[in-house]
């Protein structure tokens, strides 16, 4: 029984022009203590997938299908009340851009205390102590609990978010681009902190990013998303060393690797498809250099390339 299992998750956004197929047939699996990286270009549906897990979607979103279970318990039909209990206690989320993710007019400490009081039913005093403890854990001076978000730098704010996320010892932490917009150095610091906490607390973690290297350095397994679909999943090393999907291959090739040769790769021609009106068949086929007959007609099915390494490409079926 996996910690988290997602099957066929499909979420659309309703617009006047039609439906944005932001996330289709997404299958994910997360084991206890494992880190899963979800990579993809912008607008590939990463955030949508993550928010669908805890039903924090915008008003115009519709979850069309999908089964989500935590430790075997199906939560896809949970009501708002139950979801509220699940949120944070079982699945916590660290959002992109902590500046906006923290309430600007409330003290940072209070915002953590709030979570503790809701879920752990802790009395005020105890919650405060625990907050100070958490601050120490994320390497911030505990005296700063009474400050406001604007008094913190970007990296510090992200640490506060992390402290808040782990406050209730959740089983799963979802990090939605937690390090984007941070300096490399600070990014490295934050990632290291996350890594440390994950080990200490044995949490499952889903790390959403468009930066391949972040996944490479911190995740056990990776899922690559393209235009609302997962095109390839597998253990990080396997996928990076031996990418099976042409998109993944191109992506990895485009990554500047200082350990390799100074070489400017070819970029992928064209643009990601419009999700309001995605192409039939494989969503990548318009930009793919190796198309064959069925690519533009049929959706490819996932094929196991090696153990735990799956990819959805018609070419693979051929092999």
């Amino acid at each position, binding site marked *: 029984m996996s910690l988290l299992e997602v099957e066929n998750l499909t979420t659309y956004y309703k617009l006047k022009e039609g439906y944005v197929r932001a996330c289709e047939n997404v299958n994910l699996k997360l084991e206890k203590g494992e880190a899963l990286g979800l990579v993809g*270009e*912008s607008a590939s549906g990463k955030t949508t997938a993550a928010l669908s897990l805890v039903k924090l979607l915008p008003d115009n979103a519709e979850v069309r299908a999908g089964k989500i279970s935590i430790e075997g318990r199906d939560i896809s039909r949970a009501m708002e009340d139950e979801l509220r209990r699940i949120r944070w206690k079982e699945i916590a989320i660290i959002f992109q851009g902590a500046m906006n993710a923290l309430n600007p007019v409330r003290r940072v400490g209070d915002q953590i205390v709030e979570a503790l009081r809701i879920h752990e039913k802790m009395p005020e005093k105890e919650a405060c102590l625990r907050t100070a403890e958490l601050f120490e854990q994320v390497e911030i001076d505990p005296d700063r609990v009474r400050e406001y978000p604007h008094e913190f*730098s*970007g*990296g510090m704010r992200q640490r506060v978010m992390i402290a808040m996320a782990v406050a209730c010892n959740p089983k799963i932490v979802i990090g939605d681009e937690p390090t984007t917009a941070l*300096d*490399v*150095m*600070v*990014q*490295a*610091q934050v990632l*290291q902190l996350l*890594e440390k906490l994950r080990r200490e607390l044995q949490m499952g973690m889903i790390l959403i990013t*468009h*930066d*391949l*290297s*972040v996944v*490479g*350095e*911190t995740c056990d397994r990776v899922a690559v998303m393209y235009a609302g679909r997962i095109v390839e999943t597998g253990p*990080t*090393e396997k996928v*990076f060393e031996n990418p099976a999907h042409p998109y993944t291959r*191109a*992506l*990895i090739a*485009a*990554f*500047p*690797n*200082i*350990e390799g*040769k*100074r*070489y*400017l*790769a*070819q*970029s*992928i021609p064209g*643009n*990601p498809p419009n999700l309001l009106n995605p192409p039939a068949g494989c969503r990548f086929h318009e930009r793919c250099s190796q198309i064959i007959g069925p690519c533009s007609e049929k959706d490819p099915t996932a094929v196991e390339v090696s153990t735990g390494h799956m990819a959805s490409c018609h070419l693979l079926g051929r092999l």
Partner: protein
Amino acid sequence: MDINNRGDEQLELLKVSNLEVHFAARQGFLSSLLNKQPKQVRAVDGLDFSIRKGEILCLAGESGSGKTTTGKAILRLVEPTGGEVCFKGEDVIAFNRQRLRRFRQEAQIIFQDPYESLNPRQTVFSTVAEPLEVNRICKNNEQIEERVIEALTDAGLSNPQELFLRYPHELSGGQRQRLAIAGALVVKPDFIMADEPVSMLDLSIRAGILKLMVDLRDQKGISYLFITHDLSLAWLVSDRIAIMYLGKIVELGSADTVIRQPLHPYTRALVSVIPVLKRVMPSDKKLLQGETPDPVNIPTGCRFHPRCPEAQSRCREEEPLYREVMPGHYGACHFI
């Protein structure tokens, strides 16, 4: 494509010496009355470097280290408070209005965010044609059109006429950045300052833009000041890299040497955290504590000493000299 060190040693296009840009810290009228000495943001605090003809010099460093300010000061988009900028042997700071106008055609600029750097209410055509119109470069409309088409084609946009009447929001990210480049190319500049030109673009599109820039250098001999905080990118495209910390260059050298054999402890730390596509032992990362301090209160002595893992007492008191450590490789640290 392999990229080798480029640039004619003899032909120094741009030379910057001891450049300083200090801003008066934002202050109310009253507090400026009360505090005799207004606080200063020392955004750029004494830079020396030069760019050769046909060279890409990369300015790298953390956020707030003064990269953008340096670039703008060179183009006189902010007024330097000290130092010299020589362009083709002429003192840019001393340019009068007319000469400055001409200079503005010789030196161009490309920004980070292709969404923000294009006027959303200007069509593709008028975006590119604007520099020509402003400077009255062309005699007639036909000539303008010719030049516009040429620039758009050079920037890798095929079928430029079809794009003429589009607005930026009707273009994709890559197209947009190409449009911005076309807007710079149209006046046939010798020098382009590119401020993080690809950091907002997806990985899959980035390479194309970078390649375009390099190609233009090769074909037209355009020199670049390439600003980025991404060292792997810097390494990839540039001939030489300068690493900035708090308004000063701490190290400057050819791209390969700076990345492969960094001298300065700061550079070493930066290089150690460059992302690679594999798991790295945490111990291999030389993580620095904290973030770049505020340029209002620059530490005494070596400005890096509070975060330096190798700091000694000397660093606290004495500011290290910026000197040529090895041929073509400059650094500012007491211990290199």
